[in-house]
């Protein structure tokens, strides 16, 4: 086990506490940099989606994980970013400009959503953000002069400094990776400054935060704006990646996917946002696998246990029907959320911490270390 001897206040501030971080993150970075040369183009394309989902995850983590304000409306913020890009692109605005404009506009919209949300907490805030998402979806479908309605909009290939950057090429992947990295570094900076601490203070006790001089309303609006702005930037990249956007892409299901990203990844940490994004992007290939291979495998197993060819054929048909049923994805999402909430509320990152601690303390690890403790003194809280 590693013991850190802190000799300077700098040691409490710096992002890289010890050399172990340099090694592990160095290896990760090296792998990500050579990925386009060693992985298939399909996997690189999946990595781009991981970057985009992870950005939204980081944005949502700031709002939900750190400030404690739930949102089921982030698909709308993504849509605003994406449509800003598609719209400005028609007027030959260069990429850096409409990229930042997408983030800025979404941030402003986020702040505007934040104002009415100031008086709402918990389930009511969730309902308000869902309503906001429905409004945006409807506006996108009806405001045909700008958004082309349900026909959708075509997004031209990204061009950066006169160079075309096709959405399946390695350059686009590097661009997404760079944007994600900068977002994460910026967020980490924020979290180690007064603003980040004010967010966490609001999450844990608004009354105490207020009595310590935190302007709770202002910081909630700030949190909404930052979260939305990051999601808007992700939206610009999302539009380019798909090269076509239409209102039915930004539905409630997408917002739920974002919640899954932070819930499965593990709330309260940026690692969680990235891990959750990887997990979510992997669900699609998994579903394809279910559709293509699972019926054959199960029928094969049945046959080896003595089922005749007619029974095996029936089993094959039934399994195939289930695996390609409509709404299977939603059902799987539901099951995953329930299982994680029940058995691993800290998410994948929490599981990783437990595994790490197990090896650090081996053979002295105690299972009760992470046991949640019941607290009884919270009965008479001021709100």
């Amino acid at each position, binding site marked *: 086990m590693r013991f850190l001897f802190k000799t300077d206040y700098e040691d409490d*501030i710096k992002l890289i506490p010890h050399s172990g971080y340099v090694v592990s993150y160095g290896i990760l970075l090296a792998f990500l940099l050579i990925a386009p040369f060693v992985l298939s183009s399909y996997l690189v394309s999946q990595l781009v989606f991981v970057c985009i989902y992870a950005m939204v995850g980081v944005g949502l983590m700031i709002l939900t994980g750190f400030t404690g304000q739930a949102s089921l409306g982030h698909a709308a913020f993504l849509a605003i970013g994406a449509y800003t890009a598609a719209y400005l692109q028609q007027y030959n605005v260069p990429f850096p400009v409409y990229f930042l404009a997408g983030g800025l506009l979404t941030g402003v919209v986020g702040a505007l959503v934040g104002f009415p949300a100031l008086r709402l907490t918990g389930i009511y805030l969730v309902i308000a953000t869902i309503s906001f998402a429905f409004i945006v979806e409807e506006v996108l479908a009806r405001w045909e002069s700008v958004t082309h309605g349900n026909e959708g909009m075509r997004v031209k290939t990204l061009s950066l400094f006169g160079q075309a950057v096709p959405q399946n090429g390695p350059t686009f992947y590097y661009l997404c990776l760079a944007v994600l990295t900068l977002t994460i570094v*910026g967020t980490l900076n924020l979290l180690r400054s007064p603003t980040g601490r004010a967010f*966490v203070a609001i999450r844990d006790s608004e009354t105490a935060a*207020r*009595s*310590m001089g935190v302007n709770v309303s202002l910081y909630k609006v700030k949190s909404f704006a930052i979260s939305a702005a990051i999601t808007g930037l992700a939206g610009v990249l999302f539009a380019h990646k798909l090269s076509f956007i239409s209102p039915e892409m930004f539905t409630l299901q997408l917002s739920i996917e974002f919640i899954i990203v932070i819930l499965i990844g593990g709330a309260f940490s940026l690692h969680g946002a990235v891990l959750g994004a990887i997990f979510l992007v992997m669900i699609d290939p998994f579903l394809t696998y279910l559709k293509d291979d699972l019926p054959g495998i199960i029928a094969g197993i049945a046959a080896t246990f003595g089922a005749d060819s007619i029974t095996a054929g029936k089993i094959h048909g039934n399994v195939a029907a289930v695996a390609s049923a409509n709404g299977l994805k939603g059902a799987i999402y539901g099951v995953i959320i329930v299982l994680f909430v029940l058995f691993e509320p800290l998410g994948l990152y929490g599981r990783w911490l437990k595994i790490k601690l197990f090896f650090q303390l081996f053979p002295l690890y105690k299972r009760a270390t992470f046991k949640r403790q019941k607290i009884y003194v*919270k009965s*008479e809280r001021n709100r």
Partner: protein
Amino acid sequence: MSYFRAENLSLHFGGLKAVDSVSFAVEKGEILSIIGPNGAGKSSIFNLISRIYPPTSGRIFFEDQDITNQPAYDIAGLGIARTFQNIELFENATMLSNLLVGRHRHSTTRLWQELLFLPSVRAGEKMHRRRVEQVIEFLDLEAYRDKLISGLPYGVRKVIELARALCSEPKLILLDEPSSGLNVEETEDMSFWIRDMKTELGITVLMVEHDMTLVNRVSDRVIALNYGRVLAMGSPSEVQRHPDVVAAYLGA
């Protein structure tokens, strides 16, 4: 003029008069205790001062400034810090970040500077950290710097809450039952700290307390309340001998 003054302060919940035209003044540098049976309106007075509730009527003055209508988050900025009866710490954060939130009213950095973590932000963080360390030393909290609050025992949390209030470098501190839930030794430590706060740090203390030993040991003056009204005011021994106070506690 008094340092801190409440004039005819009232708080009514419908027909219930939790605080009923209470007036008192706190002189600079004194320790004033508010005592009274349960439901006498002691904590409600604190909640009025820190603007968790708006008063039904009456005015509050601090350093000759009317603060009755200041927003709650401005109260800390004026130099009034408080602790809570049922501990309101940020449970899922370390002690250090809890104490650093106490420094919030002194932070001057802007959002974009923080996103880039410019040298000014770094310097500010170090300065805050140094101030926090002084408070940690003052209250003997060295052992808990990186510990999560949710894993700490009640007595330690109580001290950390006091530490967080001190980190904001207040001029006036409101302590809501500082000794509740503490054992005899911890209460004794608390009484030393309260006196040190007055003598070494020059902080004026307004405190709600049930433990009469602690009240007698530290207070310069005592106010006794019952049913939202002031029963008696004066030195600890005077107030304890006052017939109305005896009646309120013993029901004579």
